[in-house]
């Protein structure tokens, strides 16, 4: 006797290639968008990244938004601000389950809007953000990974935040330019 059952899932993955935004040659003259989720002490890392790249790469400006909760999209007015000003962007910090995946989605949404972006995540959450990328067909979308011994949930000292910013600078530059 054949038994037929219905599939309970919505499947996974879009089946279509995800188009990335076109990267500039350099960061000179670009406005760096920062989509911070406020996790732990990570905002200070983003501030340090912005300060360093402004000094070394000639950024034209910074457009930072801090989301109203760690795992939600930017508010509509924040999104409008990003679209109006940012020409490249970083998102994160992806150090918890829902915030890492949402930060990855923020980066992918920025890409879809034509703004080159990169998400900074902790190695503990790399499988989660990979799944989020796979969901929209961006399977090989590059992320910047911070590893142990640094705390995933961004409970960092000020010195640690500054050191991590310095550690990821080259990768941020690499991912946001061609």
């Amino acid at each position, binding site marked *: 006797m054949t038994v037929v059952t*219905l599939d309970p899932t919505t499947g996974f993955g879009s089946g279509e290639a995800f188009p990335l935004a076109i990267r500039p040659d350099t960061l000179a003259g670009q406005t760096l968008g920062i989509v911070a989720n406020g996790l732990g002490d990570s905002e200070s890392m983003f501030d340090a990244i912005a300060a360093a790249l402004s000094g070394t790469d000639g950024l034209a400006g910074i457009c930072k938004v801090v989301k109203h909760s760690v*795992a939600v999209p930017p508010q509509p007015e924040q999104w409008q601000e990003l679209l109006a000003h940012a020409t490249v962007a970083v998102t994160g910090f992806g150090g918890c389950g829902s915030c890492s995946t949402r930060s990855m989605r923020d980066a992918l949404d920025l890409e879809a809007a034509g703004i080159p972006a990169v998400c900074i995540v902790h190695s503990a959450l790399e499988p989660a953000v990979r799944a989020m990328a796979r969901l929209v067909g961006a399977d090989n979308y590059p992320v910047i990974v911070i590893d142990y011994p640094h705390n995933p949930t961004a409970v960092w000292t000020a010195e640690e935040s500054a050191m991590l910013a310095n550690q990821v600078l080259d990768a941020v530059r690499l991912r946001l330019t061609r």
Partner: protein
Amino acid sequence: MTFASDTHSFDSFEDALEGQFELGVTDGLPVIPPTPERVAAMLVAGGVAGDTVLGEVPTRDVVVTAEKVAINAVMAGCLPEYFPVVLAAVRAFLQPLGNAHSTTATLAGAAHAVIVNGPIRHDIGVHGGQACFGPGFRPNATIGRALRLVIRNVCRTVPGVLDRASFSWPLRYSFCFAEDEEATAWTPLHVKLGYEREQSVVTVQSIMRLFQVTEFAPESEEILTTAYEIARHMGLQRDEWAGDGRSVVLVIGPEHYRRLVADGWTKESIAEWLYPRLVAETAGKFDQKVTLASPANIWIVTAGGPGIAQSWWFIPHLATPTHEAVLLN
């Protein structure tokens, strides 16, 4: 009836049972194979077309249809007459302020309580009395499980993928109970929320922390003092996005109810008394402010059985409690 879902074929019922494990669509326990006949019966009982959209999880590009919910309700072991409650629970869960992505992907492993009010409790037997949080009651067990299977299979919350809970916890198998409205003279939760007493309503509350309030003292103020001191053990920080709607649920058991009502307390006066004590500024590591916008953010429910003098706090994740009327044919 036609379906949009893919199908799987098996040589026997036993193969179909085992096949669900191989498909990776169970919670680790066996499920009822969701045959088209069973799913059709569920949709008929719910009075909905399969393509009816119940809500979305935008971060994950998920659109939840009644057909997918019916499939998962069959798998959970629901009878068709439970399905209107399952539909209301899923609709409530998917309301934007329920924050479906955050509450299911979180490291913290938040669970969801499904609280049922109104006449349908009796119609289908949702239990709110002795042992109502635990096993032994098919509507409680399967309605709560249906929501969890929807979260897993439809909303893509698979452990190790988008379910990132560090430990997770048993409440994520199923957590559904009724308010024991007849056991008290107090106003039922759904009436306080603006529904008619004759309506049936489902409330969904995310649970970040579940605190037991055990206090044997007969004095009602001692009971309430223990309650707020326990809630303040880890506190609750404000979340700007969830805003002023973020609320705690206090489930008061019958022994505490008996003491409180004898001293003239109502749900309203309890909330008014607790509120300033909960929101008092943090005074220590284990005496932290429970940030709430007003006394109305303390949602009180009565349930449980006699014996131990106990009540329970449901402290939320980054979400507000949400509610939906049960729509009957």
